[in-house]
C-alpha cells in the first residue's frame, strides 16, 4: 500500500428485502480512502453510491437492509460496533453532507442549535461554549453576520447558505472523514462554484479525507485525485482522475465521458450529436447475467453475457471490471 488508508471497504454488500424480492444495492464493493485525499465516486442514479455512504455511517435501518462485508475505519470494523460506539463515531470522526439541505436540516430548530447540539454531544462542552464554536464554524464557511444567522431557522436561508450551514455542521467536530453526497447538485452553478471552493479550502485546513459522491464528472475533475465509477451496485473502474479522463478503460466509463456535452466540444468537433449509451439501467430485480453492462455495451463479447467479469489491474493504481482487459 502506497499510502496509509483511513477507510478500507472490503466486499461490502448491502441488500434490501422488499416484497418483490431481494435488491442488492451494493454488490461486493471494495475500496480504500487514504488520509487527506478526495476520492470521487461517480455513477448514475440507482448505482449504489448513496447506499455505500449510508452503509458506512450505518444509517440504514435493518431490516429491511442487510449489510455484509467489512468497513475498516482506522483498523476497526464499523459493522461490529454496538450502537453506542457507533454514535460516538457518527457526526464526530465521520460525518456526512447530504444532497438536499432543505430536507436534511431540522426545520424547527435554529441553525445555531443544530450545529451546537453536535458539538455539545461529541465534545462534552457547555452550552455557551458549543454555541460559540457553532458561530465560529458559520464564520468559517463564510456566512455573513454569523451571530445573527445562528438564530435563524433553515427556511430563512437561501439554498447556498443552507448548504454552507450543513458543511459547518459536518465539520464542527473536525471529522477525519467527510462523506459528501451530491453536495452541489441542488445548487445553481455560481453557488456550486462557491461551495466547491469552500470544500477544497476546508479540507486542507482540517486535514480531512473526503468521499465525494456525484454524478457530475466536471466536479470530480476539479476536486478529486482518484475516482471510482459505479454501475448497478458494482465498482466497474478505479483510477487516478487524470488517467480516467485521458483514457477510460471500461466501456461504461467511455460512454459516460462521451455522453456529456462539455463546453467547446461542439465547436471543436463540429458534431451536433452526442455519443449515446443505448438502453437504460436494468431493474435491480432483473439483473442481467454475466457482466451487468453487457446489454448496453458496444463491445460486448460472447463471454460477457455468461460469466461475471474479473477485476483486472492493467497498470498500477487502476482497476477495471471487464472481460476486455482480462
Amino acid at each position, binding site marked *: 500500500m502506497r499510502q496509509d488508508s483511513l477507510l478500507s471497504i472490503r466486499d461490502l454488500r448491502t441488500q434490501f428485502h422488499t416484497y418483490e424480492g431481494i435488491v442488492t444495492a451494493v454488490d461486493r464493493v471494495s475500496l480504500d480512502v487514504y488520509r487527506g485525499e478526495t476520492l470521487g465516486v461517480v455513477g448514475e442514479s440507482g448505482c449504489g453510491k448513496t447506499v455505500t455512504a449510508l452503509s458506512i455511517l450505518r444509517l440504514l435501518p435493518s431490516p429491511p437492509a442487510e449489510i455484509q462485508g467489512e468497513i475498516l475505519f482506522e483498523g476497526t470494523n464499523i459493522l461490529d460496533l454496538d450502537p453506542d460506539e457507533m454514535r460516538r463515531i457518527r457526526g464526530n470522526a465521520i460525518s456526512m453532507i447530504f444532497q438536499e439541505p432543505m430536507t436534511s436540516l431540522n426545520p424547527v430548530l435554529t441553525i445555531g442549535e443544530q450545529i451546537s447540539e453536535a458539538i455539545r454531544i461529541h465534545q462534552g462542552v457547555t452550552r455557551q461554549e458549543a454555541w460559540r464554536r457553532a458561530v465560529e464554524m458559520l464564520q468559517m464557511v463564510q456566512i455573513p453576520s454569523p451571530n445573527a444567522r445562528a438564530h435563524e431557522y433553515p427556511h430563512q436561508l437561501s439554498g447556498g447558505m443552507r448548504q454552507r450551514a450543513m458543511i459547518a455542521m459536518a465539520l464542527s467536530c473536525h471529522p477525519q472523514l467527510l462523506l459528501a453526497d451530491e453536495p452541489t447538485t441542488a445548487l*445553481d452553478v455560481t453557488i*456550486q462554484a462557491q461551495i466547491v471552493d469552500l470544500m477544497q479550502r476546508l479540507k486542507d485546513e482540517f486535514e480531512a479525507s473526503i468521499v465525494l459522491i456525484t454524478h457530475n*464528472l466536471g466536479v470530480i475533475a*476539479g476536486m478529486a485525485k482518484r475516482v471510482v465509477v459505479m454501475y448497478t451496485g458494482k465498482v466497474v473502474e478505479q483510477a487516478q482522475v487524470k488517467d480516467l479522463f485521458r483514457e477510460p478503460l471500461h466501456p461504461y466509463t467511455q460512454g459516460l465521458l462521451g455522453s456529456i*456535452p462539455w463546453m467547446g466540444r461542439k465547436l471543436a468537433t463540429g458534431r451536433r*450529436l*452526442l455519443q*449515446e449509451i443505448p438502453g437504460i439501467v436494468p431493474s435491480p430485480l432483473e439483473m442481467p447475467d454475466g457482466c451487468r453492462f453487457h446489454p448496453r455495451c458496444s463491445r460486448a463479447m460472447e463471454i460477457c453475457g455468461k460469466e461475471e467479469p474479473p477485476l483486472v489491474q492493467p497498470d498500477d493504481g487502476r482497476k477495471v471490471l471487464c472481460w476486455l482487459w482480462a
Partner: protein
Amino acid sequence: MALLDVRNLRKQFPVRKGILSRNLGFVRAVDGVGFTLNEGETLGLVGESGCGKTTVARCLLRLIEPTGGEVLFEGEDLLKMDREALRKVRAQFQIIFQDPYSSLNPRMTVAEIIAEPLRNHTRTSRGEIRDRVSLLMEKVGLHPEQARRYPHEFSGGQRQRIGIARALALNPRVIICDEPVSALDVSIQAQVINLLVQLQEEMGLSYLFIAHDLSVVEHISNRVAVMYLGRIVELATDQELYQNPQHPYTQALLSAVPVPDPGVCQRRILLQGDVPSPLNPPSGCAFHTRCPECERACANEEPIFRDLGNGHRVACHLR
C-alpha cells in the same frame, strides 16, 4: 421575418399576505424580455433558478397571462387573440415540460396522452389516430406495443420521450423545451438531446431551449440568451457568447461551470452572495450588487440593451 418575435414581455405576480390578502407589492418575474426566434433555429435561454426562464416559457403560450408586451407568432400577437384563435395557434406552438413525472396524467395510457392533442385539435378517425400514435412512438424511440401502458411503467427518459411525442403530434413549428433533460441521468440525457437534434433536422422545428446547464445549452443552441432577475442581460450566437462573453454576469457564469478535464486549471470568477430577491430588486443594473466591475453609474441608471455588432447584444454600462 422571424417566426416568433417577443417584445417587452412582462409578468408581475402580486404578493399577498394575511386573511384580507393585503397586497404587499409585486414580484417582477419577467421584466421587459425581448428576443426573436427564426425558422429551424434553436435559441437557448439560460439563467439561475428564479431568474424567470420558466415564467417566460409559460407567458409565451399564455399558460399564465403576461402583464404586458407582445408575442408575435408569424406577425400576429398572441396576447391579443381570443380563446378560439389562441387554440388554433397552440397547435403549432408546443411545450415539453421539465418534470416527466408530473407532466403526464397518471390515469391516462400512453396512447391516450399522445392522442389527446389530435382529438382536441383535429377531426381524425380512431383508426388514423391509432396509426399516428404508433408512428409518433416509433419516431421518439418507443415501442408502439407499449401504447396501452401507463406513465408509471416507464423510466424517466422514456417518459420524456412520451412528452416529446405528445408535443410532436400536431406537427408544430415551434417547441418550447423547458429544462427537458435536467431531471435525467447523463447517459439518458444524451439520448434525449440527440433525439431533439434529429427531430429538428427532420421536421425543421424551432426550439426555445430553456435550461440552467450551460454545457447542454451550448451543445444544442444556435443563439443563446442569458437571463438575470427577469431580464435578458446578453444575447449572441453560441460561438460569440461562449468564446467572447461581454456581460460580467455571463463571464462569471461561464467560469463557474466545472470543466470535465482534470488537466485544466480553472480560473473561476467567484460571485459574492446570492441572487437578490425579485421582490425588491437592486436599483440601476440589477447585477451591480454582485458585479466585480461595478461602477458608480451601475447603481443609478438602468443599462440599455445595446447591439455590439453582428447581433451580439448586451445590457451593461461598461461595454
